[in-house]
């Protein structure tokens, strides 16, 4: 724990350096990047050690305020999330120095770096706290520093609006968690997680506690229907902050739910079914709504909702496995969820960094105005493509491995006995999610990076600098490494899963089968890559013999194609969105000169705002009662007294 503490202090020192040395930008940037990376590496060491040997590393500090001792520490679960935060977080911080540099004279970028360091440390604090009070303190620091980063471009009205929605929602989340811990810890000797684990809560309050946890952690994770703060906040924040929010901060909700499961042990069946249902709804609707987006960052944000859905599917079937006494299903589901958490942190950060690079170079995030960007930004295009293949869950990359494990858990639940079998039907949902994700990411890659530029006249975009490309390359390499050598991450994830679902052992047939098939998955990935290389050589040989010519794209007998004739993102997604009708969350305008669709959020724009407007109108009408005339108020008093008297008389008569 000393190493973790020192590492986090170094990260904070990096933030302080960025602020103190802001007069010397290049020194400040380098010091910030070096200190954050160094601190991250240092703090990651104990996390790796804990994942390897399984020993808990705890430190007990005297209490500050009420609530008992402040315990910090690493067990397997904490270590897994700490590693995830640091792996993605350090890359994001390094990228941020390059990304924000052009804004040096317009905005206080030193403060942004400092806040990013604070946010990173708060995230680490959330997952290393082993007591309620420090957990909530870290949670709140995380929420507020993230808010300040979201409204970094505060001169824009849409940014302020998105920030406000986020701030309200995150506090609803905090309040729910406060109430939850208050109820849970009522009879506990002290508010450490260890003490909470030993406190049995009666049935009825237990239900309330579990429901509050769903609300509090669900909002943070961006689960449908409380996801609606997420697209706005992610789109409004600077891109590297979006990467941290989407890749890492959402996972704090997942961490919270997993921590609950590890503390409470076996949970009632409705909890597992709810998680599974929420996962299915979030997964399908998240990707469907992503498909409808025109803003690159909003699209990626909705995709986070989808991936949270996949994680929840794994957790849900994991919880059900614990409830129904199917340890193999439980461990497989949890392993898949944990692995997808890490994987999503890697590829979603990568995608947001790529989106940021495109936005910087072209000056727009609107997909339909872009096109052919890959020609000028080849490294960004290739890394973005790697991230896309990974997020869609295709071999040979890491996303495939985690979705493969989640699907195995779902299918195995069907082969088991008892009520859990019904969970198998969600496998079809995962198939639908996969199919829609292919549509969504072919749209993004095709329309942004391939084809021809759709808006002419601007200067051609330029590839970004090494401090931006470096982190993207590193994250892409990590996606490939975990896809080709899955045992690297699956083994530790399985250990974490087994530490949550106690009672399973590695010797169980199903888990042994997973371990045994990992080399086969690696072989599959390598065969795929090797065969591709072989076919590439054959193709090269054939073409070398007969020659290659270049021409224009075939356009039939008519006039040559122009960039305006290309399919736009709207038209590309139209058949699919049309097939889904009202749930697709899109308003279509097909007028004479063109086709345009406008995405709407069915929860925020379709429900929350209309309900709010109606409430406001009702409140307005209610103001008639309070017209400021003394006579009226006296009348109200007399009427009230009369009503009370009547009531009293009525009850007295009844007695």
């Amino acid at each position, binding site marked *: 724990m000393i190493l973790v503490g020192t590492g986090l202090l170094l990260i904070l020192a990096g933030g302080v350096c960025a602020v103190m040395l802001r007069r010397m930008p290049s020194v400040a940037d380098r010091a910030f990047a070096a200190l954050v990376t160094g601190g991250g590496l240092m703090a990651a060491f104990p996390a790796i050690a804990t994942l390897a040997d399984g020993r808990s590393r705890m430190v007990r500090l005297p209490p500050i305020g009420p609530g008992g001792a402040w315990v910090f520490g690493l067990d397997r679960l904490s270590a897994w999330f700490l590693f995830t935060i640091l792996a993605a977080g350090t890359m994001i911080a390094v990228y941020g120095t390059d990304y924000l540099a052009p804004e040096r004279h317009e905005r206080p970028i030193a403060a942004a770096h400092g806040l990013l360091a604070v946010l990173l440390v708060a995230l680490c604090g959330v997952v290393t706290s082993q007591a309620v009070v420090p957990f909530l303190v870290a949670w709140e620091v995380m929420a507020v520093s993230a808010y300040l980063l979201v409204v970094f471009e505060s001169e824009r009205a849409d940014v302020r609006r998105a920030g406000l929605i986020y701030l309200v929602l995150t506090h609803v989340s905090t309040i729910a968690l406060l109430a939850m811990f208050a109820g849970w810890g009522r009879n506990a000797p002290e508010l450490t997680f260890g003490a909470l684990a030993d406190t049995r809560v009666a049935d009825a309050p237990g239900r309330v506690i579990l429901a509050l946890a769903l609300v509090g952690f669900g909002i943070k994770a961006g689960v449908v229907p409380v996801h609606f703060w997420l697209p706005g906040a992610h789109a409004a924040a600077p891109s590297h902050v979006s990467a941290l929010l989407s890749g890492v901060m959402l996972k704090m909700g997942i961490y919270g739910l997993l921590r609950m499961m590890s503390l409470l042990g076996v949970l009632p069946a409705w909890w597992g079914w709810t998680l599974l249902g929420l996962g299915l709804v979030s997964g399908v609707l998240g990707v469907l709504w992503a498909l409808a987006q025109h803003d690159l960052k909003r699209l990626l944000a909705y995709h986070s909702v989808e991936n949270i859905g996949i994680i929840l599917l794994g957790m849900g079937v994991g919880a059900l496995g614990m409830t129904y006494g199917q340890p193999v299903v439980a461990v497989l589901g949890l392993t898949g969820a944990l692995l997808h958490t890490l994987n999503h942190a890697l590829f979603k950060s990568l995608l947001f960094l790529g989106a940021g690079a495109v936005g910087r170079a072209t000056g727009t995030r609107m997909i339909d105005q872009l096109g052919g960007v*890959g020609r000028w930004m080849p490294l960004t295009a290739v890394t973005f*493509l790697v991230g896309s*293949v990974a997020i*869609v869950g*295709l*071999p040979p990359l890491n996303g*495939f491995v985690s979705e*493969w494990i989640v699907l*195995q858990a779902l*299918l*195995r639940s*069907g082969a088991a006995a008892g009520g859990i079998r*019904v969970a*198998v*039907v969600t496998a*079809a*949902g*995962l*198939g*639908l999610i*996969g*199919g829609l994700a*292919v549509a969504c*990411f*072919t*749209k993004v890659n*095709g329309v942004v990076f391939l*084809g*021809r530029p759709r808006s002419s006249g601007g200067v051609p975009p330029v590839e970004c600098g090494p401090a931006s490309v470096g982190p993207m390359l590193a994250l892409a390499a990590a996606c490939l490494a975990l896809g080709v050598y899955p045992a690297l991450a699956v083994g530790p994830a399985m250990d974490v899963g087994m530490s949550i679902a106690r009672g399973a052992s590695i010797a169980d047939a199903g888990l042994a089968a*997973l371990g*045994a*098939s990992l080399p*086969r*998955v690696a072989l*599959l990935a390598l*065969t*795929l890559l090797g*065969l*591709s290389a072989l076919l*590439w050589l*054959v*193709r090269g040989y*054939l*073409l070398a013999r*007969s*020659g*290659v*010519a*270049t021409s*224009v*794209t*075939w356009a*039939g007998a008519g006039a040559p*194609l122009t960039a305006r*004739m*290309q*399919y736009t993102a709207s038209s*590309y997604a139209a058949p*699919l969105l049309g*097939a889904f009708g009202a749930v697709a969350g899109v308003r279509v305008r097909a007028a004479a000169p063109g086709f345009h669709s406008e995405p709407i959020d069915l929860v925020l724009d379709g429900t929350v705002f209309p309900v709010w407007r109606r409430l406001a109108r009702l409140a307005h009408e209610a103001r008639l009662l309070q017209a400021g005339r003394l006579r009226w108020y006296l009348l109200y008093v007399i009427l009230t007294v009369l009503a009370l008297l009547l009531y009293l008389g009525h009850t007295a008569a009844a007695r």
Partner: protein
Amino acid sequence: MTATPFVTLLAVLLAAPALPGIATRAKSLLTGRRGAPMLQLYADLAKLARKGAVYSRTTTLVFRVAPVILTAGVLVAAFLLPLDGRTPIFGFTGDLVAFAGLLALGRFALVLAGLDTGSSFEGMGTSREVTVAAFAEPALLLSLTVLVLVTGSLSLGGMLGAPLATAWPAAAPSLVLAGASLFMLLLAENARVPIDDPATHLELTMIHEVIILDHSGPDLALVLYAGAVKFALFGALVVSVLVPRGRFDPWVAGTMLLAGLALIAALVGVIEAVMARLRMDRIPQFLVTAGALAGLAVILLLR
């Protein structure tokens, strides 16, 4: 380790280009025409391999790499099926997910290649392709789920091999439903009537053909060959589900597979002769029906 898995795989890979020919010939016979030779695709492949390629100046490396990825993905997927009724070249727990993933990877690559040309034709085709795929994917997973529930195995080798043969009599209704669903998917995934018409000459009505308008030479050969192998793989799935071959001698089972593939290709030709293609907005309904059949089978098994 016996030789049969390798021999059957080789036989299927060699015979695959004959399947579209058989379908065309069946259609020609029924519609009173002579039609192209049954082995036409072999001649086409040989000719395309010898030819050079023409690339649009709009295209990038993606366009050139895609046919290679597509073919490699389909070939590796072929390694996962127990073509001789017993053992695949390599299988593992949950390899059905890899099977679906490898086919999806090929689609991903081909769709990107289409978008790389910057043509409205290709844009149209790819948009339709991903629409079809999004509805086909859940149906495929449901069909495979039926097999998991019937056999209790999570690898294609078990789901389509000996355990299936043992469980077949008890679960026949579900398996027939799953087989029907898989056959509908075969039509959709391989751009056949009633989803897509490989013989159409108007770009505006195409799905698959219009994506590969700009491919030429060895690239086109790879795409065509991958298409033929994919047809064979879906055919093998249908044959394996409907006719459990796990109890036969592997050599006999392999021969049965080849005969079954020819039969399915002929059946596809018959469908093309007697049916028109569906309107584009009816395609989701067709695929949802396929999913519903498999879903019904799952419900029968969960009862």
